């Protein structure tokens, strides 16, 4: 991000802010969707985060730290969205959660859906660190800095989140296998 642009926005320059919105929207939307897993919620969260950036950018002491700071604002909005939206109405073309379609673990649409369901069962704390680590590609130390959390907290959340995702994947794989076996037995 152009630091001069950030400085101009800090000075109240609306045209500079519009340029910042255009430049920053894809980056913020990517993380918002990665955490919220809902197209509409992610768009709403991105817009709110951009407005929060406009409102609070004067408090950013070091424009060089804009990127991490803006992620932090976005994550805060995502927390608020998740509190408001207890039940996630996905606009994704998801497979029904009631019946896994196949058991081809680690590849294919069915596994993506299993991962999706597993991810949605995670707490927001776990979603955020997982998305920052695996979607944005931040190191755990960078995640800790952005979220203002101790490193140990980030590491433990990552471990717990990965463990929960693996458990969800394996459990769904097993249940899918059982469902297929039962179906074949009926035939």
């Amino acid at each position, binding site marked *: 991000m152009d630091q001069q642009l950030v400085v101009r926005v800090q000075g*109240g320059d*609306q045209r500079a*802010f*519009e340029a910042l*919105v*255009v430049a920053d*929207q*894809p980056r913020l*939307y*990517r993380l918002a*969707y*990665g955490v919220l897993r809902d*197209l509409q919620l*992610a*768009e709403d969260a*991105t*817009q*709110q985060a*951009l*407005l*929060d950036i*406009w*409102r*609070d*950018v*004067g*408090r*950013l*002491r070091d424009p060089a730290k804009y990127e991490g700071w803006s992620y*932090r604002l976005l*994550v*805060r*909005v995502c*927390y*608020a969205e998740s509190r408001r939206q207890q039940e996630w109405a996905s606009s994704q073309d998801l497979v029904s959660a009631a019946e896994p379609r196949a058991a081809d673990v*680690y590849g294919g649409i069915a596994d*993506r859906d299993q*991962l*999706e369901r597993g991810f949605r069962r995670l707490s927001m*704390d776990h979603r955020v660190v*997982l*998305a920052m680590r*695996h*979607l944005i590609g931040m190191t755990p130390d960078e995640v800790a800095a952005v*979220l*203002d*959390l101790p490193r140990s*907290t980030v590491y433990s959340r990552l471990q717990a989140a*990965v463990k929960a*995702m*693996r458990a969800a*994947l*394996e459990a769904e794989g097993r249940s899918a296998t059982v469902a297929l076996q039962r179906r074949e037995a009926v035939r």
Partner: protein
Amino acid sequence: MNDEQMQSVLDEWFDDTDPQPPNVQRTASHVMSRVPQTRQRGRWLPFRLFRLNAPAAITTDTAKFQPSPIPATNDHTPTVIGRTQSMFSPAKAITAGAIVFAIGGVMLIAQPFQQQSTMPGAATDEGRAAPVEFSGTWFFGGAERLAPSETDGDPGTGRGGAWYLTGLSMTDARFGGEVTIFDNLDEYSDGHVVFGDAWRVENADGAWQSEPGYSVDFADGSNSGLTAVFHGEDGYAGLVAVVDMELVRSEGGDNQYWDLNGVIFDGDLPPEPEARSLP
């Protein structure tokens, strides 16, 4: 599946499900249409999270507000812009005194001495020393972070923060000294912040420990202020201070301070009232 395999599965899954962002011009249009109604706030307030590299402590010593001499360069005599003299003037002092006497006179007329403390059920101050008023300021300019403010997993919360303040002024020396603020806060995405604070004041003769106090930052950045109760310890044991605290924020937020007005008295607070449903 081991951890490494799971990590790569997650990398791949996030990549595969990464959507196209919505039309950026539409986003820009929506956001920019709301910008005129969204007031920009000043610098991040140190009272909230104290992340500022605090500037030097602010002092009320007016002598220190005088511009320092600037050496002449290139044969030019520099021009000092701004106030170079004290704000005090005899005319202002006389005017202020007249206003104080006028207000005092009106209050005496409104409540003659013989009618004081005659309200049914009111306690009298017979046999007790009158409360002593004081005022002062706690600046945040020299705030030093003593304990980190844990976020408790939610970036909108702060827990267990502790801050040591310097650069204080106080008209009653009993309430002067070193001040430590302990704070918890919950910040909401619309800009509201709810603070829970407690203070401890220590000096050579004793200490003051506050009861928890709560205040709110409104969405426009202003603060509700609060009235805090302090209990004396050691040399001040038995004394109570009731202090109205107003948070004053300058443009930009760097020079914010608590403006204190209160009383110190020897005795107890009135009994805690109990709210109840009346028939």
